[in-house]
């Protein structure tokens, strides 16, 4: 029993850290961080981190490779999007062009990395400079505003960008609550189905109590967050997009063959190649996909900011990388989960927000983030040592 508790703690170190950090800030801010509006802001402000981290995870899985160009690509696609919307093109066209541009950039970088064997660090460093420069070029160095209401509403995290309350609750957004409850029901049903199937096939679980505890905690968390949000204005539209991206990528990494290959390449590239997997294509896909998601993060960021500026997106790549490593991705590749990066991104978001509410200056915030990252990776390295 003791070992199973120990194993549970070890496996969920970052979840526990997140809980501790939330408790710390709710005490030190007098509970302000748990106000509905602040939770809402936390999600809206960090939307891009979740989206980018999902893409970055795939790159990191292939062997600790990172993509440094992400911030610049976000800015570049923002600029293109802003110009297209300014020219009164429809939202769909703007969105598709932004995604396509991101994808092309990713494919361009992926080509060099996969087939010409340019080290990812260098290929994407080049991209980081190049697309920052090109962002300046297309924007002419100015800020370009977006007035298209429907674009802002669909992708935004601004003042009035929420999923409308179809159920017209009073004081409480019933749609939001209903969605939360539905999510929990689905989650529990999936969990039970999984348990049944495993029982039928005689697969013994390593830690049955831990799995139950986990499911209950996650359900409670979903209910709690949706309850808080429904006390405010309901589901921010950006949350829909984050959830969609995370669900899709969670599914890809867990249940598809291509998802499996990302882990395999990071675990042992040679063995994977000799098993008949086109490993070069795997590298290419990781970076092409990263570009696509950078384009999508550009869309979200443009809608939230309401305008594009050549300086936007600076440091976004680092936020995404940090979220992955804090979330338990291995710096050597082959290990990491979408649920992990969710925790990682949330942890960083909570720390940022908590310190902002406490009135700590941005300079200190950055320092604290750095320390958190180091500690997180340290935990990973030390727990590995214990195992070895």
């Amino acid at each position, binding site marked *: 029993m003791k070992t199973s508790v120990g194993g549970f703690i070890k496996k969920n170190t970052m979840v526990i850290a997140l809980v501790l950090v939330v408790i710390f800030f709710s005490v030190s801010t007098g509970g302000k961080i748990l106000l509905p509006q602040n939770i809402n802001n936390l999600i809206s402000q960090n939307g891009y981190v979740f989206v980018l981290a999902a893409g970055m995870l795939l790159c990191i899985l292939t062997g600790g490779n990172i993509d440094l160009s992400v911030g610049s690509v976000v800015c570049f696609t923002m600029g293109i999007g802003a110009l297209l919307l300014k020219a009164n093109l429809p939202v769909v066209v703007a969105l598709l062009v932004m995604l396509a541009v991101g994808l092309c950039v990713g494919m361009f970088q992926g080509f060099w990395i996969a087939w010409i064997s340019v080290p990812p660090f260098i290929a994407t460093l080049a991209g980081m400079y190049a697309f920052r420069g090109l962002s300046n070029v297309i924007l002419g160095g100015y800020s370009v505003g977006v007035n298209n209401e429907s674009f802002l509403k669909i992708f935004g995290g601004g003042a009035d960008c929420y999923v409308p309350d179809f159920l017209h609750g009073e004081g409480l957004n019933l749609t939001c609550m209903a969605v939360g409850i539905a999510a929990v029901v689905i989650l529990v049903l999936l969990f039970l189905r999984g348990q049944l199937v495993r029982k039928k096939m005689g697969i013994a679980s390593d830690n049955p109590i831990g799995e139950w505890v986990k499911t209950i905690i996650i359900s409670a968390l979903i209910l709690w967050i949706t309850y808080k949000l429904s006390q405010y204005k309901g589901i921010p539209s950006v949350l829909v997009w984050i959830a969609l991206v995370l669900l899709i990528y969670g599914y890809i990494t867990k249940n598809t063959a291509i998802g499996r290959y990302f882990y395999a390449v990071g*675990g042992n590239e040679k063995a994977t190649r000799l098993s*008949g997997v086109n490993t070069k294509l795997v590298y290419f896909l990781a970076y092409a996909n990263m570009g696509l998601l950078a384009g999508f993060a550009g869309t979200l960021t443009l809608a939230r900011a309401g305008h594009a500026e050549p300086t936007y997106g600076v440091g976004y790549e680092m936020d995404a990388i940090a979220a992955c490593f804090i979330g338990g991705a291995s710096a050597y590749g082959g290990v990491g989960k979408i649920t992990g990066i969710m925790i990682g991104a949330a942890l960083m978001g909570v720390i940022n927000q908590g310190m902002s509410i406490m009135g700590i200056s941005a300079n200190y915030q950055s320092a604290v983030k750095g320390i958190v990252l180091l500690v997180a990776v340290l935990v990973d390295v030390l727990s590995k040592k214990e195992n070895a």
Partner: protein
Amino acid sequence: MSIGENMYLGNERGKKAAIDWNTTYAEADKYLKMVGLSESSKVLVKEIGTGKQQLVEIAKALAKHAKLLILDEPTSSLNEEDSRALLDLMLGFKKQGMTMIIITHKLNEVSYVADKITVVRDGSTIETIDNAGHDIDEDRIIKGMVGRELTNRFPKREGVKIGAVNLEVEHWTVRHPLYPERLVVNDVSINVRKGEVVGIYGLMGAGRTELAMSIFGQSYGILAGGTLKIDGKEVHLKKSPTDAIRHKIAYVTEDRKGNGLILSQSIKVNTSLANLDSLASHMVIDKDREYQVAEEYRDKLKTKTPSVEQLVGNLSGGNQQKVLLAKWMFAEPDVLILDEPTRGIDVGAKYEIYCIINDLAAAGKSVIMISSELPEVLAMSDRIYIMNASRMVGEMKASEATQENIMATILRSGRGD
């Protein structure tokens, strides 16, 4: 880095911060000579073969004036000749008063070189046998290792019908990937029939692995000529293992940790990797079936593990080898090329691997077994090819082959270079 740099890494010659390279290389050369290497210590380590690298490792220990030398499987990558030289070297050191511990799977080595033999099984000491006279019976050691008397080290294969020629390679020639002027496989022709186990024996560096990997979708070197026929029809395999797998060829590597398994993943993931497509529809993996498959092969190969979710890195060498075999059996090949299938695993697991090979042959598969262990090749093969210095120098029926005439064939062919 060069041999000299490697030998004095962390033990640099010279004053203060500056390294005295002349002393370094001069001393390094001295120790190299002592272990019987003629290479200059300025040669890069990556340019010499694994056998010589092993000797450099020992020279490095000597350079530190070690009093106790612990050798962990020092001969696992050496051929018989080099192994013998290394063991004799150990005996020489012993005369000079050095204490040595040798950890090995090879029984003839312990009985040849050790004064005392300790058998370790499942993490605990089983017994210590005195071997002062160097005359211990191998069966005596085996008894300690498996906990029972192993009457036959090689299971018999009976009543297997050998069918038509399945894979035929003719005039196969491969160039070295970095030095194209060097032929690593020179005009080699082999064939294997259904239900047949063909052994390829040769010394380390004879070109056996290179031949095998080259057949397996040109995974090694540059193909310079030759034809490959499957079931009598000529096939042009693309330069990728994928195409070889599609043509039902499997290559089970000699380097299971480097080229074979993903140690950070579970047995289940490793088992399904080479044939994941068969478990997936529209790219979505049927995870329940994947689990069943992994379980099935665990049963079939008697892999010792609490669960197929166990990480492969946590398994013993023998069990890792079984997972590797499981992976390739699940790929459902017609031709299996097994490269040193029993390297570095204990006697009990070896026996089980031999049984698996027999089952494969009985199921009508064609098995090519590359091995540096003569008794294994003799006992397991129906037919034996002998390679030396990139060439095929002999072929004989197992019934006609003996240790003596195989070694004689190699010696008669000359060293080639």
